[in-house]
């Protein structure tokens, strides 16, 4: 095969693919191999890799299956960004490339490396199982097939986007929490959990939610939005994460977990002062005992270095707090309205 399309009039570019290589059988550490090939407009990163594999080096290893952006096999990092190789146009990447003419191809992050561009997906599947990422139907198995659940288009639309997920793990690779904590539930699994939780056919909502609010769960997300930005199917993943949090506070109460208490403390502070009262935040989130046990040494250090945040009475409200409070109130009302219409 040659990498060619009908648009050869538009020219060809010499492109160097700098490919991450690692074969656990022989290599003690990873390295990069450069492959320079002519590429025409309209050619995807996957087609280029196929070309390299067939014409230059058959040992370059990567996964690919449908080649049409629906199976999710070929997730990898192209110039640092996790995406599907099969739907990524080489010329588009080149236009934004920091080093002219060079495209760096690396495996997804946050999953164990197997070989070259191939990572182990088992940890992700394990998490799907741990968080019951399935509909546990309210209908007994013996009754199935006799009649349909009647579902409104409106309910369908609540999980329609979430079911676009092809488990390509781009969001997993981009997640900043997972880089620090491999046990973190991960964005894709939160998205799937949300999709199950809003499905009226599901009977396991409460158990699933109970698991999600535990350690390494939904409250660990720091809202960096990288999952959503990298989603190859443009799914609003953060809406799902917020959805689970709101649901948790609504159905389990505000004081259920340190995560919800943390969120509540933010709300109270912002409403009152327009900014955070940091000194008491740990106590309000995790309680006095936990704070003394865990943060006392750090607090001492902060005192020594005169880095302690001001005590609550000294935290002044931000400028224009009155207007801010009015805005805040209006916003909260809006969110409540949205929820009501959503839950109808």
């Amino acid at each position, binding site marked *: 095969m040659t990498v060619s399309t009908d648009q050869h009039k538009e020219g060809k570019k010499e492109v160097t693919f700098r490919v991450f290589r690692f074969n656990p059988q022989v290599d003690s550490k990873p390295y990069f191999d450069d492959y320079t090939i002519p590429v025409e407009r309209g050619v995807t990163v996957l087609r280029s890799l196929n070309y390299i594999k067939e014409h230059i080096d058959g040992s370059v290893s990567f996964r690919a299956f449908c080649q049409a952006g629906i199976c999710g096999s070929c997730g990898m990092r192209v110039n640092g960004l996790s995406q599907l190789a099969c739907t990524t146009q080489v010329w588009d990447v080149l236009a934004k490339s920091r080093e002219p003419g060079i495209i760096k191809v690396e495996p997804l992050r946050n999953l164990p490396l197997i070989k070259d561009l191939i990572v182990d997906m088992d940890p992700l599947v394990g998490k799907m199982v741990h968080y019951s990422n399935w509909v546990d139907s309210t209908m007994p198995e013996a009754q199935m*097939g006799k009649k349909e659940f*009647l579902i409104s288009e409106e309910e369908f639309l609540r999980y329609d986007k979430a079911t676009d997920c092809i488990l390509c793990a781009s969001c997993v690779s981009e997640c900043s929490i997972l880089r620090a904590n491999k046990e973190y539930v991960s964005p894709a699994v939160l998205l799937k959990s949300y999709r199950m939780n809003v499905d009226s056919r599901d009977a396991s909502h409460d158990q699933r939610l109970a698991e999600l609010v535990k350690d390494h769960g939904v409250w660990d997300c720091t809202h960096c939005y990288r999952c959503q930005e990298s989603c190859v199917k443009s799914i609003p993943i953060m809406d799902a994460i917020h959805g689970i949090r709101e649901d948790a506070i609504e159905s389990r109460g505000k004081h259920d977990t340190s995560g919800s208490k943390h969120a509540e403390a933010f709300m109270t502070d912002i409403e009152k002062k327009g900014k955070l009262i940091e000194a008491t935040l740990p106590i309000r989130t995790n309680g006095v005992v936990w704070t003394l046990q865990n943060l006392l040494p750090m607090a001492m250090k902060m005192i020594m270095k005169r880095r302690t945040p001001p005590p609550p009475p000294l935290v002044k409200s931000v400028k224009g707090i009155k207007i801010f409070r009015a805005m805040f109130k209006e916003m909260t009302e809006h969110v409540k309205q949205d929820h009501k219409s959503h839950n109808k």
Partner: protein
Amino acid sequence: MKPFDIVIVGGGGAGLYAAMEAMKTNPALNIAVLSKVYPNRSHTSAAQGGANAALGNKAKDDTVEMHIFDTIKGGDYLADQDAVDVLCSEAPKIIRELENMGTPWSRMEDNTIAQRPFGGAGRPRCCYCSDKTGHTILQTLYEQCLKKGVIFFNEYFALNLSVSGSRSNGLIAMNMKTGKVEAFQAKTVILATGGYAKMYWNRSSNAAGNTGDGQAIAYRAGIPLKDMEFVQFHPTGLRKSGLLVTEGARGEGGYLLNKDGERFMSRYAPEKMELGPRDLVSRSLETEILQGRGFDSPAGKYLHLDLTHLGADLIKSRLPQIREMSMNFEGVDPIEEPIPVRPTAHYSMGGIDTDNQTRTVMEGVYAAGECGCVSVHGANRLGGNSLLDILVFGRIAGRTAAEEAGKFTPGRISEAELAEQFEEIRGGMHPSGRYERYGELREELGQTLALNVGIFRESSLLQKGISDIAELKERFKKVRISDSSDVFNTNLMQVLELKNMLDLAETVAAGAYARQESRGSHTRIDFPVRDDANWHKHTLATLVKGDVTLGEKPVTMGRYELQERTY
């Protein structure tokens, strides 16, 4: 190690449904699913349009009976009518069952499952979830299998059945992560590896892995393959890649136009127009191109699929994937301009010969889905019937294997047999001196098939095809694997897949050459009419002493007499 009760090869819709149903039938059984990809990657996910079932949600007067007739007529009377009965009568139940366990479906105004018109169907009975129906069905099945605790062996490449006389001892497969050849001693094996249309390579809509592994395994074990010459060309593949634009696009009202801007389907199917059955519409496109009414481009001749009159809203809500694909792979936004299309090899009607319970001639071996051939699609499958097929017959395979597993005592798969398999795949593939490149052989196979065993077939073309394939098989003996690693040797896997395609290509070409008539997807220029007197029968291809040997099997008839097929 204790033998497995059931080993399922393939983790698509058929394999997963089989696993679920087998566990339901007898929870005490020891069941494993083997797949060369993670099951959620399987090609079921690419099915866009939907699954047919006479639910009567859209057209109140739809009936199972009408579904049966449409399917038999669509298959040009080659389908076995008792099998079609099973397919269509089980349809409403199985679609509801999927709905009940959590599959998302688009909805009607009265909150029931939405249905839309599809080619060759007398009523709008195709149930869908926008244009990602297969994807959502596959996700649901995978999720439910995880819920039930099905044991998966992911990224295992199936090599061969271990056979003693007339019975199977189980399966031999390569673990991709280690390169080791492992034995799966099993009372029963269900082959559910999907289709073989990828042998047409660039002129195919299929995933790279739809290489007919299951059919090739069965064929090498002496199990006959049925109706292999029937390969469906989907009318609307994208011009450059062969990737698919769902029939749903025409179901929603899309037009096919030639370079004169003419809705040319009025010439071929004045009543059904764009929604004629696939074989007929594909031939119409090909004829337009052959008679010079196609557009020209360096990537080949093509026609237009025009959706622009449908409006941005409908395209965005009902056909979002199609829009994305057209933009990604053709640089065309269907809201603004027509999509360049041409026919692409899409589906294999043929497959492993089974009875209505999915049994093959070999004790303890079953086949389901596109991998098997019951036959419910006859000479041409209707859109929306393939998802249905994998569900209905996947379930039957799971149930039958679960009920029959107790009858079989598989023999041991010896270390010697494993060593021999290992030697076969790894030993001979570093030839010295002049060697062959995998990519070239695969490319040439696709080309000769598209040219000589394609939409329009003819005696001399087919002879050329047959001799080309034979030559490629010879050259394959000198193919080289340039990756010597044990870990995830995708190069080795590709070569093994090519071997499977070469074995099967021979049966496709042989069947096409022998069948001296035109029926369904099989069109002979030199025998342009259907010949019921001589050819109203299935062909069986069996491997005897290294050669394809053709046999035949009668078609089971029922309520419907042979009729001329017009639309």
